[in-house]
C-alpha cells in the first residue's frame, strides 16, 4: 500500500505542458496549477513500503500545498534501478518502471515541489516485499508431445527470482540443483548448461548439455530451493514432456493468392545431426500442370544444421535466384510449386521413398503413406490481403499428423521459430503487439529487450557499412542518435543495428549502442546500386549474404556504401525504395571527416539517412508528390533542406531557399550543417505552412507558420511585396506550392499491396512482369526475393 495524498486541493486551473516546453531533459513531467494565494508547499522524505513487484510499480507521493497556489512537481534524480514518471502531479501519482531486478532490494529517487514562493525537495525511498510464493512453469509445457530434441528448457516466474538460488548440475548423475531434467523420473538427472536469466530475472533458460533422445518421456523439476528475490521459496513444480521422432519437419507454409507469388514453406531440422537436403524431395501441386497428383521437386545438396531452419521457395520463372543457407529456390523443368487455399506438401526421403512429413489444407488430398495424416485438413487463408501470413506448427514443432498441429499466423515468421502470439498490430509496425511484450520474442528475436513496445511504432533498421577509411562511409553514432530523436516525439521508435561498431563487444548485445547483433562491416565496393547491370555491386547480393532472412518481415536494410558511381567518385547521397525497406547511403568521396568538419560529417549522415528512410516510408521530395524545392515544405525530404537542415522560423527562414538558388540574398545559414549537430534540425513536415501561390505571393507572410517572418522570395525590393509572381522553386512554372503532413502519412508496412512497392525484390526480375497468368490479375503481386510485407489489420 503506498502513501496517500495528504491534502485536498480546491478547484484549480490546470495548464498541462506549458512548462514542459522549457524544462530540462532531466525533468520528467511538469504540471502548473494556478491560484491567487501564495504559501510555501511542504514535502518530506518518505519511504513507500511493502511494494509488490510489477514491471511498472504505481504509487503516490505525499505533499502539501495548502494555499493551492501554482506548483510544479518534477523528478530531479532518477532511481538507480528504475525510471520514474510523474503521471499526475495533482495527486502525486507516479510510475516506477524497473530497469533492473536489483530495484527489489530498494531504490530511491528525488522529487522537487515548487511554487512561486519556494522550492522543496524530498527523497522518495521504495521498499519492496513479497511473501507470496512465486508461481513458476516450464516450456515445453506439461504433457507436451513431439517436442524437438534440440529444445531448451525455459522457466517462467511471476516474480523475479533470486539468481543465487538458480542452480543446475553440470554432469549427469544424482539429481541436484534447483532446476532438474530427468529421463527416469528423477532417479538420475541429466547435465544442463546455463542458466541464462532475463526479463528482470523472471525467465530462466537452461539447455540439456546433450541433445535429447528421440521418442522419450522426460520430466523437468523446479525445487523449493528456488526463491524469489525476497527469499520466499516456490512450491516444487514437476512437468513432463515427450520428444518427437526426430526428422526433417515441414514447419510453416506461406499464404499465397496471386499466381506469381513465389510459394514458400519452411523446413526445420529436428534431429541432432546435420541433414543434407538432397536426401529429401517433396511433392506438391505445381504450376502450370495444376494436377492434384502433383509434381516431385528435388531439394539441393545443402547441409541444414540441427535446430536450424531453411525456407524452400519457388524459383522465379524468368530469373534464377541463388541458394544460400537461409533459402533454396526450387523448380522442376517448367513446373513450379504451387498452392492457394488448397494444396499440400509431402516431404519424402529419397532413399526409401518414405513419407517423412505431410500437411494438407483446403481439401483432402492424401499422402503416399496414409498414416502421415489423419482427420480433417488444415486451413490456409488465401486472399488479396493474406500476403505475409502463414500456417505453422507451434514453437515446439508439435507433430501429431493432423490439422491440430497447424495454427494460422499473421504475420508469418520466415526461417525462424513460430512464436507469433496474436494478429493485432495496432501500432502499425508489422510486429504483433503481444510479441512486443516483456519476455516475448518475434521470429526468435527478443524485441522487447531490443526496445520494442506495444503502442509504439517500432522501426528496426539493420545498418551494414563498407570497409573504408573514408569517414563518410562509417555511420557516426551521433548521426543515428539525431535520427532517433527526430522520430521519438511522434511515438515512433527507431532501432538501429550496427552490430559491434560502437560497443566493440562481440559477445553482448547492447540496444543503447545500437547493437542488436546484426549490423556489420561488409566488403568495399566502389559503386553500388539496386540490381545494376554495369559492373557496380548489387545491393541485393549484399542483402542475401549479410542479412538474416528472419528479419525480412519487419527490418529495413541499409548499407552505408561508398558511391553509386562505378569508379567510386562522389555522386548522389543516397538511394532508397519508395514504400519499401531497402536503403543505400553513399557519402564516400564527399571529403567528409571529423578532422575537417565533425558537424558536417554527422549532420550529412543524419539527414541523408532520414531522407532515404523517408522514401521507404512513402515520402517523395514534395511529401505526397515529386515537386521538389518547395520552400514552404519544411522537410528533410525537400532537397532545399536535406543537407542544410530546416530553417529557424521567424529568423531569416528563407535562408535555405536563397542558398539553393545562390541568389544575392544568400547568407550564412542559421543552424546550418557546419554548425553544431545538436542545433541542426532534422524533421519531416507537419503541414503547418501556408500554400504559396507563385502568381500571388505575399512576402510579408513568409511561410505562414506560427512566428514566421517575411521572406524576400524574389530577392528584389525587400521582403515587402504582396502580389508577387515568381517561380520560387525554379521548376519553370508558376503554380501553387503546398506543404504536406509527412508525419501523419508515413507508410510503415513497406507499402503493403501498393503498386509502387517492390517488397525488396531484385529489380532484374521486375515484379510487374507476370510469369503465370492465373487466376486473374498478377501485376500487383510480389515476387521473388521474399514477401516483405504485412497487411495492416482491418
Amino acid at each position, binding site marked *: 500500500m503506498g502513501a496517500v495524498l495528504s491534502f485536498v486541493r480546491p478547484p484549480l486551473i490546470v495548464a498541462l505542458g506549458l512548462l514542459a516546453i522549457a524544462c530540462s531533459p532531466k525533468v520528467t513531467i511538469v504540471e502548473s496549477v494556478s491560484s491567487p494565494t501564495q504559501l510555501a508547499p511542504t514535502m518530506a522524505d518518505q519511504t513507500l513500503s511493502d511494494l509488490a513487484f510489477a514491471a511498472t510499480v504505481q504509487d503516490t507521493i505525499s505533499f502539501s500545498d495548502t494555499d493551492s497556489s501554482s506548483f510544479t512537481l518534477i523528478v530531479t534524480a532518477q532511481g538507480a534501478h528504475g525510471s520514474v514518471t510523474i503521471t499526475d502531479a495533482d495527486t502525486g501519482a507516479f510510475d516506477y518502471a524497473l530497469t533492473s531486478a536489483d530495484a527489489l532490494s530498494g531504490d530511491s529517487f528525488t522529487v522537487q515541489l515548487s511554487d512561486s514562493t519556494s522550492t522543496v525537495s524530498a527523497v522518495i525511498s521504495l521498499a519492496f516485499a513479497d511473501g507470496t510464493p512465486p508461481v513458476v512453469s516450464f516450456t515445453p509445457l506439461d504433457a507436451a508431445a513431439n517436442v524437438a530434441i534440440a529444445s531448451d528448457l525455459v522457466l517462467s516466474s511471476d516474480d523475479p527470482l533470486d539468481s543465487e538460488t538458480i542452480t543446475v548440475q553440470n554432469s549427469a548423475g544424482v539429481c541436484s540443483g534447483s532446476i532438474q531434467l530427468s529421463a527416469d523420473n528423477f532417479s538420475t538427472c541429466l547435465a544442463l548448461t546455463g542458466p541464462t536469466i532475463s526479463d528482470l530475472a523472471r525467465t530462466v533458460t537452461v539447455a540439456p548439455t546433450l541433445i535429447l533422445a528421440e521418442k522419450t518421456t522426460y520430466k523437468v523439476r523446479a525445487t523449493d530451493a528456488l526463491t524469489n528475490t525476497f527469499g520466499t521459496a516456490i512450491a516444487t513444480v514437476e512437468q513432463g514432456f515427450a520428444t518427437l521422432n526426430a526428422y526433417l519437419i515441414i514447419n510453416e507454409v506461406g499464404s499465397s493468392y496471386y499466381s506469381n507469388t513465389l510459394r514458400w514453406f519452411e523446413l526445420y531440422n529436428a534431429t541432432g545431426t546435420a541433414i543434407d537436403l538432397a536426401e529429401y524431395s517433396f511433392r506438391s501441386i505445381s504450376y502450370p500442370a495444376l494436377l492434384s497428383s502433383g509434381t516431385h521437386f528435388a531439394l539441393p545438396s545443402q547441409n541444414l544444421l540441427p535446430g536450424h531452419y531453411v525456407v524452400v521457395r519457388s524459383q522465379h520463372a524468368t530469373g534464377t535466384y541463388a541458394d544460400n543457407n537461409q533459402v533454396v529456390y526450387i523448380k522442376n523443368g517448367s513446373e513450379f510449386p504451387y498452392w492457394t487455399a488448397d494444396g499440400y506438401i509431402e516431404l519424402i526421403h529419397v532413399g526409401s521413398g518414405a513419407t517423412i512429413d505431410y500437411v494438407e489444407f483446403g481439401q483432402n488430398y492424401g499422402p503416399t503413406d496414409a498414416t502421415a495424416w489423419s482427420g480433417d485438413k488444415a486451413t490456409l487463408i488465401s486472399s488479396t490481403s493474406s500476403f505475409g501470413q502463414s500456417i505453422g506448427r507451434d514453437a515446439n514443432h508439435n507433430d501429431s499428423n493432423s490439422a491440430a498441429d497447424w495454427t494460422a499466423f499473421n504475420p508469418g515468421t520466415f526461417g525462424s521459430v513460430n512464436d507469433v502470439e496474436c494478429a493485432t498490430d495496432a501500432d502499425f509496425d508489422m510486429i504483433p503487439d503481444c510479441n512486443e511484450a516483456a519476455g516475448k520474442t518475434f521470429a526468435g528475436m527478443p524485441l522487447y529487450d531490443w526496445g520494442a513496445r506495444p503502442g509504439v511504432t517500432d522501426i528496426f533498421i539493420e545498418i551494414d557499412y563498407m570497409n573504408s*577509411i*573514408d569517414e563518410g562511409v562509417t555511420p557516426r553514432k551521433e548521426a543515428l542518435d539525431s535520427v532517433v530523436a527526430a522520430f521519438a516525439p511522434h511515438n515512433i521508435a527507431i532501432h538501429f543495428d550496427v552490430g559491434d561498431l560502437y560497443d566493440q563487444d562481440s559477445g553482448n548485445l547492447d540496444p543503447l549502442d545500437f547493437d542488436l547483433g546484426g549490423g556489420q562491416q561488409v566488403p568495399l565496393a566502389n559503386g553500388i546500386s*539496386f540490381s545494376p547491370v554495369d559492373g557496380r555491386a548489387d545491393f541485393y547480393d549484399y542483402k542475401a549474404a549479410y542479412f538474416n532472412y528472419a528479419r525480412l518481415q519487419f527490418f529495413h536494410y541499409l548499407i552505408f556504401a561508398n558511391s*553509386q*558511381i562505378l*569508379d*567510386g*567518385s*562522389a*555522386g*548522389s*547521397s*543516397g*538511394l*532508397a*525504395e*519508395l*514504400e*519499401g525497406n531497402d536503403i543505400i547511403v553513399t557519402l564516400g*568521396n*564527399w*571529403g567528409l571527416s571529423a578532422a575537417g568538419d565533425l558537424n558536417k560529417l554527422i549532420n*550529412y549522415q543524419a539527414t*541523408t539517412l532520414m*531522407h*532515404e528512410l523517408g*522514401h521507404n516510408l512513402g515520402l*517523395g521530395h514534395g511529401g505526397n508528390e515529386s515537386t521538389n524545392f518547395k520552400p514552404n515544405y519544411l522537410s528533410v525530404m525537400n*532537397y532545399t533542406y*536535406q*543537407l542544410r537542415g530546416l530553417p529557424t522560423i521567424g529568423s531569416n527562414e528563407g535562408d535555405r531557399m536563397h542558398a539553393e*538558388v*545562390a541568389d544575392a540574398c544568400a547568407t550564412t545559414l542559421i543552424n546550418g*550543417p557546419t554548425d553544431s549537430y545538436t542545433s541542426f534540425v532534422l524533421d519531416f513536415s507537419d503541414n503547418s505552412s501556408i500554400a504559396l501561390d507563385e502568381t500571388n505571393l505575399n512576402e510579408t507572410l513568409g511561410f505562414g507558420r506560427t512566428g514566421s517572418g517575411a521572406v524576400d522570395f524574389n530577392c528584389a525590393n525587400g521582403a515587402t511585396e504582396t502580389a508577387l509572381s515568381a517561380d520560387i522553386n525554379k521548376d519553370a512554372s508558376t503554380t501553387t506550392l503546398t506543404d504536406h503532413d509527412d508525419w501523419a502519412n508515413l507508410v510503415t508496412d513497406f*507499402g503493403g499491396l501498393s503498386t*509502387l*512497392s*517492390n517488397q525488396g525484390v531484385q*529489380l532484374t526480375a*521486375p515484379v510487374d512482369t507476370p510469369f503465370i497468368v492465373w487466376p486473374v490479375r498478377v501485376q500487383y503481386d510480389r515476387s521473388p526475393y521474399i514477401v516483405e510485407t504485412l497487411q495492416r489489420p482491418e
Partner: protein
Amino acid sequence: MMHRILLPAVALGCASLFTACQALPQLTEPVAIFYTPEMTQGVVADSDELRLKNIRLSPWLSAIPDCLDCRVTSRVDDRPSGPSHQVSLSQAEKIYWAFVNGKTTPYQTDIGRFSFVDQQLYVQTDPAQAAVKLTDSLIVADCHYQLLWQAQPRASAMAANISDERPFVHFQVLYRCN
C-alpha cells in the same frame, strides 16, 4: 556582348593564347574526383592523374598547369544529387586555371555563374552581362572556358519504386587564362 568571341575565332586564337590549346582527347566519362588523406603541395601529375591539395582528378588527359608561387583553392557545393567542385590556381589573387565539376545549376563559381537552359550550358562571367552559351569553348577577356564533359539527359529512369536522386545536370569545364 563585348567579351564573347565566337567559335571560329577560338581556333584562330588558340596558338597565341595557350600552348595547351590543342584538341583534348574525347572523354567518354567525366573526370572523377577523389579525396585522399595525403596533402599535396602545389600541382602534382601522377600517371594520368592530377593531384591538388587532397584532391585527385582522374583521368587527367589535359595539360598540366604550371604552379609557381600559386595558391591552390578548392571549394565544394554539396547537394543531395552529389557535390559540385571547383579547384583553382591563382597568383596575385587572380585565377589563371580552374576546373569546375558542376552537378547543380545555377552554380555560382569564382569564374562565373553556370546555368542550364534547354539542355545547353550557359556561363555568366559578369553580373552586368547576359549569360553566354558554352557549347564547346569560349574566350572571355583572354580567358578560355572549355567544356570538357556534359552529361546527356537521363537515358533511362530508374524503377518507379526507387527514389531517383541522380543529378539532372552534370558538366565539367576547364578554365585557363594567359
